[in-house]
């Protein structure tokens, strides 16, 4: 699918700039040009598709549906999938969280959404698809949604309602009506320019991270010896997965910047499962997210939430490594 892009990169580096294909610099530059263009094309395409999904996603109807229907546990899965398709912008997570709880949706179901929302996002998916291929991307998305489903269900069992912020509890006590709402329906063609612009804005916003991430990746590719990480992280010692996850939790790296670097770690010997767990902890949990959540819940509740999700990510890391080792 991207053969033409490889030809283009070969032509630019080896023919136009006359850098030898056998040199470290040549390989690194070629890798950089090819990957940057491929990722940007994938990124725009996926972000644009998600923009269309988002423009027509019936959030309010989903809320009513989750609230009224008896779903025998499936509500956790639906909520988690909903978290996966909501936009990259994490600032909508808090209003949605409050809206859900206020609408009478159980806290655990709301948590399922809250876990998956940053964990599975369109930028991470596009980056994964570009750097690891379809199989690793599917593992990432499916396990992310499963993690949200099970994590939400477990958090729901803890009865954490008393740990919500006082003002949120107050809102829950006196049910509010939504303010008057009147929106003109817009046709798809009327909305298309804004959806395109929105997708372009997201791509522009992560462009710098993509370029820096791929540049670091390209440099490492050319200069770090094969199997370099085997002796440190690739030997399958039990502590490597928890270490990778614990390092990643407080880190706030844009998925766009971190995936190209993680890809080199994998290419040089780190197991893919460990790398996926690292990625999940980087994008799924972060200090800025905790700061946002601080407005709606107590520190104790944030600690329980982060603790449960961290344990689940570590567990998934082991599981991926076993599965990929056996069947990969």
């Amino acid at each position: 699918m991207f053969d033409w892009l490889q030809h283009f990169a070969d032509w630019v580096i080896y023919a136009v700039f006359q850098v030898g294909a056998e040199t470290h610099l040549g390989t690194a530059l070629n890798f950089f040009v090819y990957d940057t263009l491929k990722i940007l094309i994938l990124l725009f395409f996926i972000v644009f598709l998600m923009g269309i999904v988002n423009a027509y996603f019936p959030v309010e109807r989903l809320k009513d549906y989750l609230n009224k229907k008896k779903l025998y546990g499936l509500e956790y899965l639906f909520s988690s999938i909903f978290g996966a398709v909501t936009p990259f912008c994490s600032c909508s997570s808090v209003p949605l969280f409050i809206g859900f709880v206020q609408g009478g949706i159980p806290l655990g179901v709301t948590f399922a959404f809250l876990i998956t929302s940053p964990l599975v996002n369109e930028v991470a998916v596009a980056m994964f698809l570009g750097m690891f291929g379809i199989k690793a991307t599917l593992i990432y998305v499916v396990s992310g949604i499963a993690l949200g489903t099970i994590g939400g269900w477990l958090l729901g069992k803890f009865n954490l309602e008393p740990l919500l912020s006082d003002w949120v509890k107050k809102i829950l006590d006196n049910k509010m009506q939504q303010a008057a709402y009147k929106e003109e329906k817009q046709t798809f063609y009327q909305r298309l320019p804004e959806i395109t612009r929105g997708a372009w804005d997201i791509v522009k916003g992560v462009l710098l991270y993509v370029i820096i991430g791929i540049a670091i990746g390209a440099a490492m590719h050319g200069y770090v010896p094969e199997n370099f990480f085997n002796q440190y992280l690739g030997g399958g010692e039990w502590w490597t997965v928890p270490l990778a996850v614990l390092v990643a939790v407080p880190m706030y790296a844009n998925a766009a910047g971190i995936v190209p670097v993680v890809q080199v770690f994998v290419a040089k010997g780190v197991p893919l499962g460990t790398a996926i767990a690292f990625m999940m902890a980087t994008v799924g949990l972060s200090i800025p997210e905790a700061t946002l959540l601080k407005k709606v819940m107590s520190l104790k509740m944030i600690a329980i939430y982060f603790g449960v999700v961290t344990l689940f990510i570590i567990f998934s890391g082991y599981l991926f490594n076993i599965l990929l080792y056996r069947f990969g």
Partner: protein
Amino acid sequence: MAMNNIYIMSKVIKILGTGCPKCKSMTGVVNDVVSENAIDATIEKVEDIMEIMKFNVLTTPALVIDDVIAIKGRVPSKDEVLALLN
């Protein structure tokens, strides 16, 4: 709009959003439309989550014109905002 005096009074525009990129682009669009068309309106940015939740919106950014929510969870085009303000 039931109120007739709305055309005489200055419009009160509120932009609800916690400061994410989309909220900023909405503010940009609204500012442009108001100044380009010399519309008599005050623009207020509501960034406090507690204030935002008083409107009970699920998705931000949201555009509120004279206490009526006109747009939720997306950035409108200039034409759309102009139509809403007229």
